[in-house]
């Protein structure tokens, strides 16, 4: 088991992923789900840059990371707008209440 800077960062990435996944599983608040998704994407961005660094093609890793950030921000914006609308129309942000709504 050797410790170098890369696998320490990998450890951090896995921790962030784990927290993100766990949060995604147990949260019921719609806005908080958007928030947890952001945590997941942070992990992915670091992982992409890490992979770029490791394989000697940091430019490629960075460019894909930038694409992911853009895509994710658009997702966050639209998801938040949806959440706001859901709150306006149903009066709640609780997932289990929203999913039992019909029609």
């Amino acid at each position, binding site marked *: 088991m050797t410790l170098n800077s890369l696998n320490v960062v990998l450890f951090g990435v896995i921790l962030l992923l784990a927290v993100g996944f766990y949060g*995604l*599983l147990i*949260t019921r608040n719609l806005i908080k789900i958007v928030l947890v998704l952001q945590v997941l994407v942070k992990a992915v961005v670091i992982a992409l840059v890490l992979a770029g660094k490791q394989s000697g093609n940091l430019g490629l890793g960075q460019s894909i990371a930038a694409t992911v950030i853009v895509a994710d921000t658009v997702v966050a914006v639209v998801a938040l707008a949806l959440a706001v609308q859901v709150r306006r129309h149903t009066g709640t942000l609780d997932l*289990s209440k929203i*999913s039992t709504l019909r029609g």
Partner: protein
Amino acid sequence: MAGILIGLVIGLPWLGALVLWQTRDENPRLQHTLAVAFSIAAGVASLALIPFASAETAISIPMGHYFGELTFTADGLAVALTAIACVIGSLAVIFSVDYMQGEEQLSRYYAFVLLFIGAMAGLVLSGNLLFMFFFWEITALCSYALISFYNDDPKAVAGGIKALIITQVGGVGLLAGALTTYAVLGSYQVSDLLAKAETMPAGLLTLIAFGFLIAAAAKSAQFPFHTWLPDAMEAPTPISALIHAATMVNAGVYLLARFYPAFQHVAGWTLAVTIVGLVSALITAFMALTATDLKRALAYSTVSQLGYMVYAIGVGGVFASQFHLLSHAVFKALLFLSAGAVIHSAGTRDMRRMGALGKQMPFVRNVFILGALALAGLPILNGFWSKELILEAGLSEGPLWAYVGMLLGAGMTAFYTLRMTWIVFFGEARESLHVHDAGKAMKVSLGLLALGTLTTWLLAGPFGEMLDETLPFHSIHNLNLSELANEIFTAPATYVALAMVALGLAIFWLFRKQATAKSEAWMDILSRESFGFDWLNGQVAERTVQFASVLQKTQTGVLSWNVVGILGALLAVLIFLVWSA
């Protein structure tokens, strides 16, 4: 120069679409004027592009080495189809000025028409398979949106959805072919596929060839996908003329013609193409024999004529098919638009309620007859020349049984064409419909198309020459006009075909009472059910829905459980990867 013109041909209609999308519906005059201006500008640009036809890549925009280049090539095949799309597009828009008078939501209508014209030009000019797919899907989207233009009519909405779903099946075929090409050659360039087809593994080339055949059949409404086109007739008539007769449905034929050199040695491909063309031509001609809806009858005849073009490609007559495509685009647009003038003023599409309309609308009657004669294939109209070329190619290169079938189709075409004309314009009036002749804008576009029907066959020589010079991979059988006339008038096949046409006309004349009466005969019932293909479509849709409703039980609608499913699948994939490593 060619690059600028290509930019104009695609960019002008799209700019027009954007502008019209922003216009407000309170000012229809402005909308009509803008749409006509933009479409005519695109038409002029497309005509100006013709002299610049060459096999060289005209525009090449680098998209990075992972995606190749976005290229546009203005070769003979592409400029001809671009000109058809833009010129007939502008005529349809001019016609719409009268036809759509007083309709609401014109900005939506014109924006989609212009978006379609630009996308169609892009589709044929594109030299990159990925972008060809992109434009292909835009045309499908516009077709759907315009079929369902009257979106408070459930039939129009259903027809639009049907067209969208069926053409999407074809789109998947095109995408699969494009991705396979990239996987093998590492390039999306059309020219690479044509140049290196022989070096590709036979199995993968077969996959690409049949993927493209499925795409073409779905787009051109060929057997077994022919059921969407008749239902698409709920669209406003200028749309039927432009998209569902003159341009978009030709995209499938274009695709087959474009890649014919790459696929002609694939085992069974040309035979499959021939059979698809033959079966489509025959069964839809049969359905047209008893159709009572004027636009549906024309739609059946469109599928049938597209069948002729597909058949021509199957027997190797690429020039014959493209020449018939040109003729058909002109005379079928003429027929549809004059039918539109009739429907617009009579207020019905049911031929059983029409009759003896010829006296009240002489101009429309005259141009309709001209188009009908071209469709039946009578000399010296453009339909005659191209159909004879196809039949000749079929006789000399293709199997004899297919040729006999196509001859029979020519006879049926003559029969249903005369029947249609007779019921609408002659005979006795069945109902007292108050009709009036076409408006000024309608007359302009009808007149120009009638002129085209009379004269486009004169272009055969230059058209063949252009195709020959600018398509390095195709071997075009190039004839100038006098050689063409000589070949057609000395070949016995011509007289056989003409005899068949005469027979069709004679049979109609003898049995015109029965043929125009409403009948419940077996063939009538058979046609109304589209030979069971509608039932088949329904079954496929129903099974899909049933399967989906079974799967629906796994959807709780609770996000947390869905995430459990996603993570569980991720875990399974990870375990599999570690296991196999």
